[in-house]
C-alpha cells in the first residue's frame, strides 16, 4: 500500500513534557490505520499533529517532519484551513452545529466557496448517503441536527467531514460515546469509506481496532512500540509489551 502520510523523527513537547519521542511512521492510502495504547501514550497527540490541531496549544513545540501527499504540513507557507479541508476530523463526542441537518453538511462547502444551491443539494445528499444517514433524514433536512440520536449525530459529523472531500479522515475515539448498535453502524460505515478516504483512528477499544483496521500502531510513553498489519499485530506481535497490552496485562 502506498503511504499518503510520512512521519519522520517527530518530537512533540508540551512545555517541558516530551509527548512524542522520535516518531517515524508511514500511513498507507485508502486503508484504516488504528492507533492504540494506554492513556497518555501519545496516540491522540500524534493524530492531532496530522491536521495541526496541536497549534492551538501555545506551549506546543514540534520538531521533525510530517509529509501528507508529499507536502510538508509544518512548512511556513501552509494554510492550516486548507490542510484541515484535506484532513478532516471526527471527535469522541458528536458535535453537530446547532443548525439544520442540511446546514451542518453544507457548512464546509459554503465556507470553501460553493454557493450554487443545486450543487450544495448534491453535495449534501452524496455526503449523507456516504455516511449512511440519507434514508433516515432525507425528509427532515431542515430539522435541527440536535434532534438526532447520538449515533445519527456522529454519522452527521462524518457526513460534514466528507462534504469538503478530504483525502484523510481522522477519528478520535469516534464511537466511545455511542451504544453498541450505533458503534457497529459507524464501524461498517468506516469500512465502506476506506475505498475513498484514508482513515486514521484512535481507539481505546482494542477489539474495534482488531475488527476494522488494516494496520495497527501501538504506542507507549510517547513512542511507537510496534506498527504492523492488524492481523499480525493481534495474533503474533513482535514485542512483548504489545502482547502484554493487547492481552490486558497493563493499561
Amino acid at each position, binding site marked *: 500500500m502506498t503511504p499518503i502520510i510520512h512521519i519522520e523523527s517527530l518530537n512533540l513537547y508540551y512545555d517541558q513534557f516530551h509527548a512524542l519521542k522520535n516518531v517515524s511512521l508511514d500511513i498507507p492510502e485508502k486503508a484504516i490505520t488504528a492507533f492504540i495504547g494506554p492513556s497518555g501514550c501519545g496516540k491522540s497527540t500524534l493524530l492531532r499533529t496530522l491536521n495541526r490541531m496541536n497549534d492551538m496549544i501555545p506551549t506546543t513545540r514540534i520538531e521533525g517532519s510530517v509529509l501528507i501527499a508529499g507536502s510538508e504540513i509544518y512548512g511556513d507557507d501552509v494554510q492550516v484551513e486548507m490542510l484541515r479541508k484535506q484532513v478532516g476530523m471526527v471527535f469522541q463526542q458528536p458535535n453537530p452545529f446547532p443548525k439544520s441537518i442540511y446546514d451542518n453538511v453544507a457548512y464546509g462547502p459554503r465556507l470553501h466557496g460553493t454557493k450554487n444551491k443545486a450543487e450544495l443539494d448534491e453535495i449534501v445528499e452524496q455526503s449523507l448517503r456516504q455516511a449512511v444517514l440519507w434514508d433516515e433524514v432525507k425528509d427532515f433536512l431542515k430539522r435541527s441536527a440536535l434532534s438526532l440520536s447520538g449515533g445519527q449525530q456522529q454519522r452527521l459529523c462524518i457526513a460534514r467531514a466528507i462534504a469538503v472531500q478530504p483525502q484523510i479522515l481522522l477519528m478520535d475515539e469516534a464511537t466511545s460515546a455511542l451504544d453498541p448498535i450505533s458503534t457497529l453502524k459507524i464501524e461498517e460505515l468506516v469500512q465502506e469509506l476506506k475505498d475513498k478516504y484514508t482513515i486514521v483512528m484512535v481507539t481505546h477499544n482494542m477489539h474495534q481496532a482488531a475488527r476494522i483496521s488494516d494496520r495497527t500502531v501501538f504506542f507507549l510513553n510517547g513512542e511507537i512500540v510496534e506498527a504492523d498489519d492488524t492481523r499480525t499485530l493481534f495474533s503474533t506481535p513482535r514485542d512483548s509489551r504489545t502482547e502484554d497490552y*493487547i*492481552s490486558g496485562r497493563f493499561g
Partner: protein
Amino acid sequence: MIQRREFDQNLEDLRQLLRQMGEHVEHALTDSITALQTFDADKAKKIVERDIILNQMEEQVMDLGSRLIVTQQPVAKDLRRIIVAFKISSDLERMGDLAIDIAKVTIRLEGQTLIKPLVDIPKMAELVVTMVQESLQSYLDENTDLAYKMAKDDDEVDHLYSQIIRDLYAHMVEHAGELQQAMLLTLVGRYIERIADHATNIGESAVYLVTGHRPDLNQ
C-alpha cells in the same frame, strides 16, 4: 493485574484438564497393550467403560474454552492457548478411542490363545507412550525442541508398523486358520500408529502455541 486473575486461572484450568486427559490416555494405552499381551478381557472391558471420563473432560475443555472466548475476547497467545486446547483435547479424545479399539480386539479374542508371542507391538506401544508423554510435556512446558524431538520418533513407529505388517502377512500365508487373529493384530498395529500421529499433532499444537506458526511434524 487484577482483571486478569480469573482469566489466568481459567487458562491454567484448561491446561490442567489437558494434563489429566493426557494421563488418562497414557494409562488407557498402556493398559490396553497389557490386556492384549495377557489376553485379559476383563481388564479390556474396564478400559472401554472408563472412556466416558475422557469424553467428559473433552466437553469440559470445549465448554470452558468457548466461555473464555466469549467473555474474555482473547487475542494473540491467549487466543492460541484456547485454540490449542480445543485441538489437543480432540487429539487426546481420538487417542482414547484408539486405545479402546485395541481393548476391543482383546475382547473379541476372548477364549483364544496368542498365535505368536507379541514382540514388536509392545515395543511400538512403549515408544508411542513415550511420544504421548513428550508431546503433552512439550505443550505443558511450551518446549518446541521437545516437540521436534518427539516427532522424530514417529519414523521408528512407522518402521515398526511396517515390520509388524510384514510378519503378520507372512504368518497369514503359512497359517490360514489364524487369519482372524492375525488381521486383528495388524489392526492393533494400525491403531498404535494412529495414536503416534495424534501425538505429533499435539507437538504441532505446542509449536503453534509458542510461535504462532503451525509446522508439519507428520512429514
